[in-house]
């Protein structure tokens, strides 16, 4: 697990990119925290820069929308899902288990 940030650093509607070999982003939406691969599966764009609404993030480049819970896109142009990761909040700190990536169907 890696430490993302403290809860106070990530208000609802915001996202934070965690740089690494594969960038992962943690999103705060609808009262929950979600972690996804940061790069849109359609074309190179950072989902942390995207628009967060309900339980979805919209890619800032071409408006593909991904379900934060599953990583599955609900509209074109994205064809493939992004991977999701478990998020744990403990003592006011958000942790992401980047090693337990969940490949989605």
């Amino acid at each position, binding site marked *: 697990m890696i430490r993302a940030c403290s809860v106070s650093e990530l208000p609802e509607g915001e996202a934070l990119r965690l740089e690494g070999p594969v960038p992962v982003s943690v999103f705060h939406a609808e009262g929950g925290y979600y972690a996804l691969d940061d790069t849109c599966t359609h*074309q*190179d*764009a*950072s989902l*942390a*820069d*995207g*628009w967060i609404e309900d339980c979805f993030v*919209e890619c*800032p*480049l*071409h*408006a593909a929308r991904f379900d934060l819970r599953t990583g599955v896109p609900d509209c*074109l*142009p*994205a*064809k493939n899902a992004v991977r999701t990761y478990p998020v744990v909040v403990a003592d006011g700190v958000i942790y992401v288990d980047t090693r337990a990536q969940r490949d989605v169907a």
Partner: protein
Amino acid sequence: MRTVAVVGTSLAGLRSAQELRAQGFDGRLVMIGAEPPYDRPPLSKNFLLGKVSADDLALAGQDDLDAEWRLGVRAEKLGRDGVTLEDGTTIVADGYVIATGAVARTLGAARCLKGVHTLRTLDDAVSLKRELAAGPGPVVVIGAGFIGAEVASACRLLGHDVTVIEATPVPLASVVGPEMGTVCAGLHAASDVRLIAGVPVAGFAGTDRVTGVRLADGREIPADLVVAGVGARPVTEWLTGSGLAVDDGVLVDSGCVTANPRVIAVGDVARYHCLLRGGRVRAEHWTAACEQAGVAVANLLAGSTVTHFARHGYFWSDQYGRRLQFAGVATEDVRIAEGDVASKRFVATYHRGEALTGVFAIDSARPFTKLRRAL
């Protein structure tokens, strides 16, 4: 409506077909196109750089359409009895989607010289990429619009010596305004690409293969390879005799419907009545092609214009490792909303009085998106 023929398997054509199915059309769907559908924007960027392959350009959802594909043939004529293809067959339909797109404008005198390219199709990109790989010779790009700038950027990243020639004094000024156009011009210099602006091209040097580009001021710029990014022309020749009004594109109303409610036009080929700007415009952009499809198809299925296309134009461009995004309309009142121009990482907003009319950003996707939504 039992049969719909989509003429042009561009992004706009494919999206129209997807919208037809999504909006409940369960009849016969015929897809007619010279080329299979693919995503064009990466051609001047990551495809030239070798970061994506032709396979990666495939557009999603082609297999789910339950369509009859007539690929590799062009439409020759649209008449009362249907759309006639160059192989002589005629497809009779109850509704027609015109999505034949546009082709690159060429510079007449250069057509027969080797080494002079345009970039519009996958074939164009493959041939340009092959020539770029053949040697490090100097490249001259004619036109500093988005295609020109992206090609210049890719050629520079591939190690070529690059000169960009632009006829107008400030590149992109007609799109992003002179102030931001000047900022865009600076991106070339920052990457050691020469920009010669305000000078038209007078001709070419070379007999069999191009060796240089002659400028109107008498200069000659050496070139082993020339790429002309001088705009595109809508593909409408085949509509001669169709009775449809054509003037730099198929003339359609604000719902992308022609004077014949059974015929709609979408994407680069459509010159629609824009409710936001007033007057007719063609929106040669990826997002417009996607967004127009849903509106146009709803109107086709309804038999009249029941919904209108009224979205602000949006486009993006990747140049020299930076991401440019623009939405709306550029006015003279430009303000920096975030970041600073010197660092080439900022969001600029355009205003008319207190109203926000446009947003331009470099490497600032997040604040850009927020402001774009406020348009």
